[in-house]
């Protein structure tokens, strides 16, 4: 028996080796495919894996020898311990609050006859097209020392928005849309008849909610919570602007690495932050991803009867309107702030801030836009090529490519920034200070999401169409450009839109990489806030949002001319 099994195993192994050889041969026979795979693997290795590996290596080296010094240092200094604690405290609080608000929005959107669905969706898109610290800026305008609400409405002198509470406010307002979008999709997939069955068996609406809807959504709720947690701990812009004395790990990595020029001291903290967000991501992806009840209930049999009872609709509508208008107000304040002399002190109309911005030069505006415009098509094409390879081709190194590009979604921007500085500031490849490294950062930060959405749309295309083309004698390149690319056009173009807005608004990674030669809008804005020039910062933010908004509209317009309908392009 045993020998028979061994024999069988050996046969299986031979088969596997055989098939590996077959794959190799197939790949080698197609030089373009082979070259593309090599190139992609090299890019991923150089700009995702290698920088992280470098941080890891540095974190274990102290004075030229292998040592745990940097790690023991973290846990020795109470200051550092506090920072770690802060990060968790913030992440957990924001995650819980955002999930609750996001669930309220999602439930209202999917279950209740409320009027404001368009408004809700619009609010959910705002964080994507604006820099990550915008809400912090308007929080200062509203609740700062001379804030509209704090001083103007309540007459509080020296109100302090800086710190934990202010940070929670702005992060919740920034991240609850993420939770909302995740959960609304899942709620729409619950089969209404399951809830009707419960109702029919005597459960009140509230009982149905607590015993059916919420338990069915539990994995989705946890999922949304973890996603927000990951974003909260990785957030750099908001804690930097409004954190005050409340420092988080993401900020401290920058402060220590760039501010105190103690790169290797920052590495251990970076590794720790990386561990936190990557493990949260792994739980979210591999544990919760599989534990969904919603797939079990199967196809939605009929449309849901939306709840129309006034005692549910009215309070919920009111809360949503309140929250949405508050978020809306925060965004509207920015352009207003740009035209006010000294916010809260001298509220007269002025163009001074604009004049100032023009006098010190529009260089950041030009630099940012042109670099982002270069990065955008690169990101778009690279994402689609990688998505195509991952879905449609077999090759050695595929699992590696899949794993690294997916995991890189969860790598905090500051960690990447630190990694790039560590890796590319010495020979053979000195890239820091160049435009190249900025473009690379733009590409690598927006590519992972592009790859995933490309993969999702490719999975919906029947491979037999592509096979038919290659049977007819088309090469790999030909199949990709003539068959696959046209079919994933919508995903490709929404990838472009995403890549552009993401590049324009990026802060965390590039703040490590900017130099005198290139100045970027987000970084300039942050330093203006830092120097207390709120008006100027508002001008920069306004310009940034206007550029992103108009380029998106322009892209949509150009694409509709090319036959891709605007509805197909989503953010």
């Amino acid at each position, binding site marked *: 028996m045993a020998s028979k099994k061994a024999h069988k195993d050996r046969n299986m192994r031979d088969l596997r080796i055989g098939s590996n050889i077959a794959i190799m041969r197939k790949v080698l026979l197609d030089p373009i495919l082979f070259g593309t795979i090599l190139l992609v693997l090299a890019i991923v290795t150089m700009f995702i894996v290698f920088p992280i590996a470098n941080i890891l290596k540095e974190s274990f080296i102290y004075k030229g020898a292998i040592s745990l010094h940097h790690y023991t240092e973290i846990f020795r200094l109470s200051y550092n311990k506090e920072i770690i604690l802060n990060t968790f405290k913030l992440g957990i609080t924001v995650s819980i609050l955002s999930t609750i608000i996001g669930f309220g929005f999602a439930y209202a959107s999917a279950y209740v006859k409320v009027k404001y669905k368009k408004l809700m969706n619009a609010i959910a898109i705002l964080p994507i097209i604006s820099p990550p610290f915008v809400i912090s800026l308007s929080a200062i305008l509203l609740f700062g020392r001379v804030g509209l609400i704090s001083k103007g409405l309540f007459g509080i002198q020296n109100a302090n928005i800086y710190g934990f509470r202010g940070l929670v406010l702005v992060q919740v307002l920034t991240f609850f849309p993420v939770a909302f979008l995740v959960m609304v999709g899942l709620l729409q997939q619950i089969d209404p*008849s399951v809830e*009707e*069955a*419960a109702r*029919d068996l*005597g459960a009140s609406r509230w009982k149905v909610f607590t015993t059916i809807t919420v*338990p069915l959504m*539990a994995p989705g709720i946890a999922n949304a919570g973890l996603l927000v947690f990951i974003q909260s701990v990785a957030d750099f812009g908001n804690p930097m602007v409004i954190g005050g004395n409340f420092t988080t790990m993401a900020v401290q990595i920058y402060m220590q690495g760039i501010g105190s020029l103690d790169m290797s001291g920052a590495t251990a903290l970076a590794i720790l932050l990386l561990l936190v967000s990557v493990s949260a991501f792994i739980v979210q992806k591999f544990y919760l991803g599989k534990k969904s*009840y919603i797939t079990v209930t199967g196809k939605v049999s009929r449309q849901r*009867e939306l709840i129309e009872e006034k005692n549910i609709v009215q309070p919920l509508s009111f809360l949503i309107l309140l929250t949405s208008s508050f978020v809306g107000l925060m965004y509207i304040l920015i352009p207003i702030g740009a035209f006010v002399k000294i916010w809260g002190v001298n509220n007269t109309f002025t163009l001074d801030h604009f004049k100032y911005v023009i006098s010190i030069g529009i260089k950041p505006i030009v630099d940012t836009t042109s670099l982002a415009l270069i990065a955008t098509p690169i990101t778009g094409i690279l994402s689609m090529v990688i998505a195509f390879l991952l879905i449609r081709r077999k090759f050695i190194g595929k699992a590696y490519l899949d794993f690294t590009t997916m995991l890189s979604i969860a790598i905090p921007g500051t960690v990447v920034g630190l990694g790039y500085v560590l890796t590319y500031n010495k020979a053979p490849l000195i890239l820091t200070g160049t435009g190249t490294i900025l473009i690379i950062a733009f590409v690598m930060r927006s590519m992972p999401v592009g790859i995933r959405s490309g993969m999702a749309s490719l999975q919906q295309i029947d491979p037999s169409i592509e096979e038919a083309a290659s049977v007819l004698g088309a090469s790999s390149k030909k199949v990709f450009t003539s068959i696959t690319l046209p079919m994933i056009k919508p995903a490709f173009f929404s990838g472009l839109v995403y890549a552009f807005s993401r590049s324009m608004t990026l802060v965390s990674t590039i703040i490590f990489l900017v130099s005198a030669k290139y100045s970027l809008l987000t970084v300039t804005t942050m330093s203006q806030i830092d120097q207390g020039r709120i008006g100027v910062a508002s001008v920069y933010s306004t310009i940034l949002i206007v550029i992103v908004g108009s380029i998106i509209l322009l892209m949509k317009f150009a694409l509709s001319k090319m036959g891709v309908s605007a509805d197909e392009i989503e953010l």
Partner: protein
Amino acid sequence: MKKGIIIKNLTKIFLINNNSKIVAVDNVNLEVEPGEFVTLLGPSGCGKTTLLRMVAGFETLTDGEIYIGEENVASLTPDKRDTAMVFQNYALFPHMNVYDNIAYGLKIQKVSKPEIKRRVQKILDLMKMNDFSNRVPSQMSGGQQQRVSLARALVMEPGVLLFDEPLSNLDAKLRIHMREEIRKIQKEVGITSLYVTHDQSEAMGLSDKIVIMKDGVIQQIGSPREVYQKPENAFVAAFIGKANTISGTVLAKDGKTYTIDIDGKPHVISSKKEYEVGREVEMIIRPESIIVGKEGYHTEVVKSIFMGENHEYEVRWKGQVLQISEPNPYSKRTYEVGEEMSIDFDETALHMI
């Protein structure tokens, strides 16, 4: 406690985009006796589901009244009505095992734990599902899930049991098996049932009474035998089985017995309805009620198919095509296409509409 249902002048209008409207249920009147098994039968979109969902409380009434037992339920939400529903897609709670699914309604009613256990056990025995009590829905086949769904409804001992095409997601063989199972259990428990289907053989096999609907309007209410043998109109006749419509003239009338001239030959037919002498009438005759080989009318065979249990013909007669089904073909002569066939109509099976 089994209860009856009384539906009076029930209408449901759906407004679509505030301008166009659909009359899904149109002035329906229906009585279901306590313990009776009534089936709503009709083509897709005729309003069966809408009617059922109004009884359950999932749709509001545009007009009319619904009584369950003595109670006017129009203003009651579904949880306050003494109904339990079995859904087409089972609608089991995916996060609960079979036991908890069945116990759900009892828990909501705050029935004591030992009592819940006793009643769930009883139902599991009745459904022969004892081995399944720890399984979750995703670990069961469609047929098993539908049994759980039925058990979950039965355990509530509701006044009225509602079914919306419970078997349509199952394969043909299982469907017949489950049909018999449902009938057996319904008889055993004696529960009032309102059952929606668009499968006529299901309706025939299950019902005490069949309600045939079309475009929201009831066409006929009657026992399976009545709707088959005495259809009210051509739609009912064609919807339940196959039917030939032929025409004739009333020659004479003697009480409820009529003499009808069909193509020059008199036939004696009884009917409850009133027809004047000299009037042209339409009659229904089922394919199996046309007698093959008996001297009566001359026809030409245009189609001839051996189906095993019967032999099916189509014959041309007087410019129309008649469908004929001859049972037990083994001992009989077969006609080929193009041959002449003489036929006659079984007078007891001729039905005037």
